[in-house]
């Protein structure tokens, strides 16, 4: 289908056009034009999705089709998960662009052009079937994202955030280049299907394991897994709000997607005898990420940083879900990504409303100032409940699938980790809702656990206003409605489960990419909600509310805790926070340690 390549080509052509004419076009034309392109891409991707649900297909650019299982050309290999992600990215870009109409007082065509290139890179990343292209789209996505992070280049925070982001992710990309080169050396192929076919039937030797480590650690950097996550909180705290929406809503999740894609297209064959060990390694990284992110999230007072750590915690869940290596786990992650992405996008937009109106994003500075804004407060609280995966919103369905997959794989303790993550991330948002919009809890400084002020690092918008444009409330409200409803659409969750089962069908993937024709999948099973799903969901929700209430009303209880409990906990928290030093050298030292850890454990256990 020839529209396939347009999903990348249209925004790629529109972006420089906007830049070329930016001195002559009025603001409104930039806004409408860029949004129009994003809508067009969303439509194209949705068409691809509709077509590929019936039958996945490979589109060979310029007609360079494979012959006798050998590829010379580059393919876009379209299946429902990839096309769905591209659609999702385009929808979020549309939302972010509409939101930015009123968010920026002044934005020239450069901002719009960067957003469109970002969209092109994300769409290409989701759709490509070529390993090298995947890495190049990763770098393109990165380069645009660095520029967008430092968009307010006159200010200190964005400069530092941009530098940390750029260096961390570039190192990740270079590691991946080496991984690609090693796989090319072994197989002589760059197409994922052909690499997978060439590796099938061979045992995993050190070269393949090193290549896998380099690729995985690269994508884990993008996904912000511990300990290669440090760039994320910095970049999210300082990037313009419409950009944060995309970072947290979809870009970070693309890293998780790539790990799943690479595993099931390339490494599933050689790793099959050691699936159990790989599962343990990925789940270990995921669990640490989920818990670390949850603790850091709850201890923040800078709202955007709080949301950033909430994203890290959720990435931990996603990594665990992928790490379970089952169709159900993958389906859970896919469902969760949709629910979480919409929720987090809306929450960033609402944080942007606070910033736009009050010129600060510090939870304590905003104490009680939101009393006159019940609608925004209600939306914030809804977002908090959605993060806590309250029954029966989209995130709840995702989490239920993850719970089921964990129990199937004999990781019965994993749902507890999920509950802690939901509890802390949801509770943090509920807490700030209570403090900002109801004036509950301590005002300033009484609460020492959260006592690092965050004003200096936030310079995005400093003027205060006494109004909020309606559009800036409407867009997050629509996204939240989507986050509630999508899981309830009949057939949506079972559809994702079927797509996930097809996604991980290694042999069929090689078949439909290299041979073309109709893919034949075995019938996929779909699951039903169990009683324990509701228990976990309700437990996380109640836990989030209790956690928020305790920190708001009963924070003095802390003084009654015996010192032997309190001091190590506070010292631990201080250490954890101290690691996020903002120093790029520290971050790269952690990156090296993370890569060595993943590589070392892989070489020992997967050989």
């Amino acid at each position, binding site marked *: 289908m020839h529209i396939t390549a347009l999903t990348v080509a249209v925004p790629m052509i529109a972006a420089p056009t906007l830049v070329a004419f930016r001195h002559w076009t009025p603001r409104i034309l930039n806004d409408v034009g860029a949004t129009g392109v994003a809508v067009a891409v969303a439509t194209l991707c949705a068409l691809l999705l509709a077509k590929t649900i019936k039958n996945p297909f490979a589109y060979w650019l310029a007609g360079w089709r494979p012959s006798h299982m050998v590829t010379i050309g580059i393919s876009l290999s379209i299946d429902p998960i990839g096309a769905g992600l591209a659609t999702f990215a385009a929808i979020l870009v549309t939302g972010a662009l509409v939101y930015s109409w009123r968010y920026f007082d002044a934005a020239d065509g450069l901002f719009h052009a960067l957003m469109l290139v970002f969209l092109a890179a994300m769409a290409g990343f989701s759709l490509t079937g070529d390993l*090298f292209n995947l890495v*190049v789209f990763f*770098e393109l996505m*990165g*380069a645009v994202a*660095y*520029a967008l992070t*430092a968009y307010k*280049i*006159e*200010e*200190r*925070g964005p*400069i*530092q*955030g*941009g*530098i*940390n982001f*750029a*260096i961390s992710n*570039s*190192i990740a*990309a*270079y590691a991946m*280049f*080496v991984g*690609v*080169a*090693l796989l*090319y*050396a072994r197989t002589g192929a*760059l197409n994922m299907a052909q690499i997978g076919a060439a590796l099938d039937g061979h045992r995993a030797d050190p070269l393949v394991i090193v290549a896998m480590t380099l690729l995985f650690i690269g994508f884990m950097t993008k996904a912000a897994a511990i300990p290669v996550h440090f760039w994320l*909180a*910095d970049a999210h*705290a*300082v990037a313009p709000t419409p950009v944060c929406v995309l970072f947290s809503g979809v870009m970070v999740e693309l890293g998780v997607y790539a790990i799943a894609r690479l595993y099931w297209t390339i490494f599933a064959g050689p790793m099959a005898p050691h699936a159990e060990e790989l599962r343990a390694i990925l789940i270990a990284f995921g669990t640490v990420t989920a818990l670390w992110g949850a603790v*850091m999230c709850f201890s923040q007072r800078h709202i955007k*940083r709080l949301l950033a750590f909430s994203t890290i915690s959720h990435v931990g869940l996603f990594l665990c879900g992928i790490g379970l290596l089952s169709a159900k786990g993958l389906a859970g992650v896919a469902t969760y990504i949709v629910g979480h992405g919409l929720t987090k996008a809306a929450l960033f937009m609402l944080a942007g409303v606070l910033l736009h109106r009050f010129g600060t994003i510090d939870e304590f500075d905003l104490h009680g100032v939101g009393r006159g804004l019940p609608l925004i407060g209600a939306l914030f609280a809804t977002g908090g409940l959605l993060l806590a995966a309250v029954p029966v919103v989209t995130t709840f369905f995702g989490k239920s699938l993850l719970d089921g997959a964990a129990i199937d794989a004999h990781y019965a303790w994993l749902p507890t980790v999920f509950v802690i993550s939901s509890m802390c991330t949801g509770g943090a948002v509920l807490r700030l809702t209570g403090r900002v919009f109801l004036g509950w809890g301590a005002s300033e400084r009484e609460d020492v656990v959260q006592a*690092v002020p965050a004003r*200096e*690092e936030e310079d995005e918008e400093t003027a205060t206003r006494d109004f909020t444009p309606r559009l800036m409330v409407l867009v997050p409200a629509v996204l939240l409605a989507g986050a509630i409803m999508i899981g309830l659409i009949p057939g949506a969750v079972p559809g994702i489960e079927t797509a996930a089962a097809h996604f991980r069908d290694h042999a069929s993937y090689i078949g439909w990419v290299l041979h073309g024709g109709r893919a034949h999948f075995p019938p996929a099973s779909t699951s039903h909600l169990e009683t324990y799903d509701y228990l976990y969901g309700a437990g996380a929700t109640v836990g989030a509310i209790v956690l928020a209430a305790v920190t708001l009303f009963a924070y003095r209880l802390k003084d009654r805790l015996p010192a032997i409990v309190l001091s190590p906990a506070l010292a631990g928290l201080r250490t954890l*926070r*101290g*690691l*996020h*030093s*903002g*120093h*790029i*050298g*520290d971050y*790269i*030292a952690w*990156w*090296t340690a993370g890569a060595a850890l993943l590589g070392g454990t892989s070489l020992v256990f997967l050989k």
Partner: protein
Amino acid sequence: MSFLPFAVAAWLFLAGLYGIVSSRNLIRTILSLTIVQSATYLVLLGVGYADHAQAPIFADIPQTAKAVDPVVQVLVLTDIVIEATVTALLLAMAVQAHKRFGSLDPSDLRALRD
């Protein structure tokens, strides 16, 4: 086929990482990043190398002549384009950092810390 290019590449990768970790100047940090990337060129070219082979420009040599792998050379070109972009962007940010923080020492960049 020798292991030398791969050994040098590994050394460059690690030396670049060490350069970033130990750097007291952002320009040095950015140059160390380009050293890390140089490792990727060496790996790619090392993968495509063949003994006694010619450059893969078939206008000048017989179609049947033994040539090194042109694919990796194209990949290296892409890699270089990416490096140019990212380095330029980072240097621009370093210039701004010097203006706003009055220093190029990463330890003096204190807008973000937890």
